[in-house]
C-alpha cells in the first residue's frame, strides 16, 4: 500500500509542477463554469434568441402593443400561437422555452395599474428550462415598465388610464369624500405631469417573486427600467409549470458548474493518461518495474493519483459554486456523485493509457475523442437544453453520467433512486476501464513496452 501512495504522491506533485496540466485540470474548468454561468445568467451580452410562444387572448390596443414589443425584444424569438393549448404544445415539444399568455382583460388591467391589481400576464414554462424562464420574466417586466412609461409620455393613453381610475374611485364605497377629493387632485396632477414629461420612466419595482403555495408561482418581478419605488407592483406574471417538478437549478451557476466538472474530469484524464503513456514509453516505468513492487501497485498508484485529483477538482468547483450562491440540495448524494464520477473517470484514464500506443496517440486521438464526448456529454450545452435525440446520443458519453450525478447532488434528484443509473454506469466504467486498460498494458510487455 505504501508504494501505491508513494507513486500517487509523486504523480500529484508532477501534476502540480506541470503548468499546462495544472491549468487544464484545475483552472480551466473553473473559468468555463464561471463563464457559462455568467452567460446563462443573462450577463453575457448578445445571445441567440430564446423561442417563446405568444398567445394573445385579449384584443385591445395595449395587448397588441405588448405582443408586438415582445416580438421585437432582443433575445426573444416570438412564435405566435392561436390558443393556450397550441402554445403549450410548442413548449412540450421543446420548440419554445415558454409560452406567454396575454389573458383576456389585459387591456383593462393596464388601466388599473394605479388603482390596484396591475397588469396581469401568464406564462407556461418548462421546469427544466427555468433558467430561461427567469430570463423571460425579466423581459416581460421590462416590457411592462415600458408600457407604463409609454402611458406617461402619451397623454391620451394616460387620460384613458386616469378616467378608468376616476370611475373606480367614484364608485368606491369605502372612501370618504375627503379621500376621494385627494385622489381627484392626484389624478389631475398626474394628468398635467404627463403632458410635461417627454421621456424616461421613473417608475419601478424590484420585489422578488414569491411563492404562494399551489402549483403556480406569482411574481411581480423586478425590471431593469427606472429606479426602485417601494410597494408598487405593476406587472404580475403568473407562472404555470408544465409539469410539477420542484427540482430545478436555483441559478445559472447550478447549470454551469456541472459543465465545469466535465472539463475538470477531462483535464485529469488527459494529464494522467498521457503521463502513464509517457512512463511506458520512457524509461521510468521500466525502472518502476524492476523495483520490488508489483505491477498492480504501480497502476493503482497512478489510478489513485487520478482519482484524488478528480475529487480535488470537483471539490474546488463546488466550493466556488457555493460562493456563487449555488445550493447543494443533497450533500450526501453530492458526495456519492463526486466519488462515483472520480472512479468512472479513473477508469477512462486507464483505458486511454492502455489503448494509446504512443504519447502522440493519447494527445491526438485520445484528446479528440474525449473532447467530442465532453461536448455531447454536457460540456458545452447543458444536457436539459439539448434536443431529445441529442440527449439520447449523449448517453454514450461518460461525461453525461457524471453531469447527471453532479446535477443530482445539486438539484435534480428526489432521492437516492436517481443515483442508481448514473452511479452504476460510472462505477462500471471505472471497474471495466481499469481492467481493460490494465490488461492492455500488461499484455504489451511482449513488445517493447515495459509493463
Amino acid at each position, binding site marked *: 500500500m505504501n508504494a501505491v501512495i508513494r507513486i500517487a504522491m509523486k504523480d500529484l*506533485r508532477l501534476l502540480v509542477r506541470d503548468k499546462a496540466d495544472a491549468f487544464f485540470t484545475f483552472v480551466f474548468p473553473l473559468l468555463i463554469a464561471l463563464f457559462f454561468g455568467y452567460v446563462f445568467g443573462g450577463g453575457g451580452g448578445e445571445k441567440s434568441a430564446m423561442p417563446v410562444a405568444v398567445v394573445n387572448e385579449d384584443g385591445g390596443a395595449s395587448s397588441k402593443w405588448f405582443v408586438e414589443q415582445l416580438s421585437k425584444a432582443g433575445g426573444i424569438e416570438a412564435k405566435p400561437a392561436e390558443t393556450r393549448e397550441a402554445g403549450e404544445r410548442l413548449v412540450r415539444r421543446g420548440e419554445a422555452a415558454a409560452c406567454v399568455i396575454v389573458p383576456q382583460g389585459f387591456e383593462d388591467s393596464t388601466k388599473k395599474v394605479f388603482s390596484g391589481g396591475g397588469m396581469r400576464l401568464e406564462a407556461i414554462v418548462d421546469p427544466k428550462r427555468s433558467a430561461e424562464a427567469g430570463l423571460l420574466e425579466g423581459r416581460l417586466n421590462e416590457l411592462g415598465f415600458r408600457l407604463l412609461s409609454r402611458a406617461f409620455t402619451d397623454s391620451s393613453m394616460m387620460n384613458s388610464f386616469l378616467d378608468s381610475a376616476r370611475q373606480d374611485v367614484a364608485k368606491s364605497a369605502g372612501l370618504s369624500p375627503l379621500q376621494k377629493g385627494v385622489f381627484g387632485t392626484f389624478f389631475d396632477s398626474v394628468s398635467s405631469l404627463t403632458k410635461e414629461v417627454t421621456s424616461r420612466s421613473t417608475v419601478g419595482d424590484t420585489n422578488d417573486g414569491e411563492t404562494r403555495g399551489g402549483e403556480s408561482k406569482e411574481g411581480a418581478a423586478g425590471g431593469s427600467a427606472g429606479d426602485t419605488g417601494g410597494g408598487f407592483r405593476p406587472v404580475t406574471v403568473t407562472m404555470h409549470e408544465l409539469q410539477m417538478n420542484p427540482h430545478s437549478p436555483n441559478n445559472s451557476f447550478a447549470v454551469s458548474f456541472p459543465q465545469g466538472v466535465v472539463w475538470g474530469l477531462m483535464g485529469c484524464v488527459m494529464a494522467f493518461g498521457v503521463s502513464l503513456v509517457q512512463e511506458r514509453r*520512457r*524509461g*521510468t516505468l*521500466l525502472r518502476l518495474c524492476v*523495483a*520490488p513492487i508489483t505491477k498492480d501497485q504501480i497502476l493503482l498508484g497512478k489510478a489513485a493519483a487520478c482519482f484524488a485529483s478528480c475529487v480535488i477538482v470537483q471539490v474546488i468547483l463546488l466550493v466556488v459554486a457555493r460562493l456563487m450562491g449555488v445550493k447543494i440540495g443533497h450533500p450526501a448524494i453530492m458526495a456519492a456523485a463526486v466519488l462515483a464520477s472520480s472512479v468512472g473517470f479513473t477508469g477512462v484514464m486507464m483505458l486511454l493509457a492502455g489503448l494509446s500506443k504512443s504519447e502522440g496517440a493519447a494527445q491526438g486521438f485520445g484528446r479528440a475523442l474525449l473532447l467530442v464526448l465532453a461536448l455531447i456529454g454536457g460540456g458545452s450545452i447543458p444536457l436539459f437544453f439539448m434536443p431529445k435525440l441529442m440527449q439520447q446520443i449523449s448517453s454514450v458519453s461518460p461525461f453525461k453520467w457524471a453531469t447527471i450525478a453532479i446535477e443530482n447532488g445539486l438539484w435534480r434528484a428526489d432521492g437516492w433512486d436517481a443515483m442508481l443509473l448514473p452511479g452504476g454506469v460510472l462505477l462500471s466504467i471505472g471497474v471495466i476501464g481499469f481492467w481493460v486498460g490494465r490488461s492492455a498494458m500488461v499484455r504489451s510487455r511482449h513488445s517493447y513496452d515495459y509493463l
Partner: protein
Amino acid sequence: MIRLEGLTKKFGEREAVRSLSLEIARGEVFGLLGPNGAGKTTTILMVIGTLVPTSGDVHIDGKSLGDDPSLRRRVGVAPQALALYEDLTARENLAFFGGLYGLRGRELNAAVDGALEMVGLRDRAGDRAKTFSGGMQRRLNLAAALVHGPDVLLLDEPTAGVDPQSRNSIIELVRSLKGRGTTIVYTTHYMEEAQKLCDRVGVMDRGSMLAMGTIDELLRDHGGDSVVVYHDAEGERKVVTRDPAAEVARLIERGVRSGLRIDRPDLESVFLNLTGRALRDGGAE
C-alpha cells in the same frame, strides 16, 4: 552469479537476440560491446525480467528476477531510456526510487546524499532534472540505479549522449563500484570504455555473440597483427607482425632507436576482423 542459457528473443520474424549463453561471476565487470541494433538492450531487458524471452532462461543466483521481489532489492538498473521524472528535482527523483526499495527517513536521506555524491551532483540536488545537461541526466540516471545499494548493476549504455567530462566521471564511478565488489553488466558501443573497464567483453552483432573473453584473449584471438613503427634514414617504417616483442628485440639489435613504438590491435580491429565492418559505422539497421 548471472547465467544466460540459450536466450533468444524474436520480434516477429526478426531475431533481436539469438541463443545467447554466458555466465558472469560475482564481482565481475562484463561488457556487452556492439553497434546499435546488436541486441544489447533486448538482452538487458530479458535479464531484468521485463521482456519475456522467446526461448531460453536467465537466472541470477539461481532465481528469476521477474518473479522474486527480494532479489530485485539487490539489483540496480540504469535503463538506456532515461528513467527520470523531469519535473522532480534530482533529490526528489532519488528519494522516490529509494522509497520504493523500502528506505525511509534518515536512512533514505543518507542513501540519496551518497548517490548524489557519487555522481557529483550534490550541488545541483535541488534543481529539476529537466534543467540538467545530457551528461548530468545520465549521471542522475545512474544514481537512481545505485541509491538502494545494489550488489548487481545493469548499466545500459550509461555514457550514451554524454560529454567527455561526464563520460570520464562515469567511468571512474564504475571503477570504484567494481572496487567494492559490485557485479556489473555494462553495454556500450564504445570500445575504449569496454577496454578500460571490463574484465571480460562479449562482442555482439545482429543478435549474435561473436566472441567472448578477456581483452587479452580477444586481442590475441581476433585482433590480428601488431604494427611496429620506427624511424630510419628514409623516414617512418612499419613492420607488421604477429609477435611484436620479438620484432622490437630484433630492431634494437640492429641499432634502431629512433621513434620505436608498437601499435597493438584494439577491440576496434577485433570487431573489424569478426564482422568485416567498423564498429563506429553502426549497426544492422
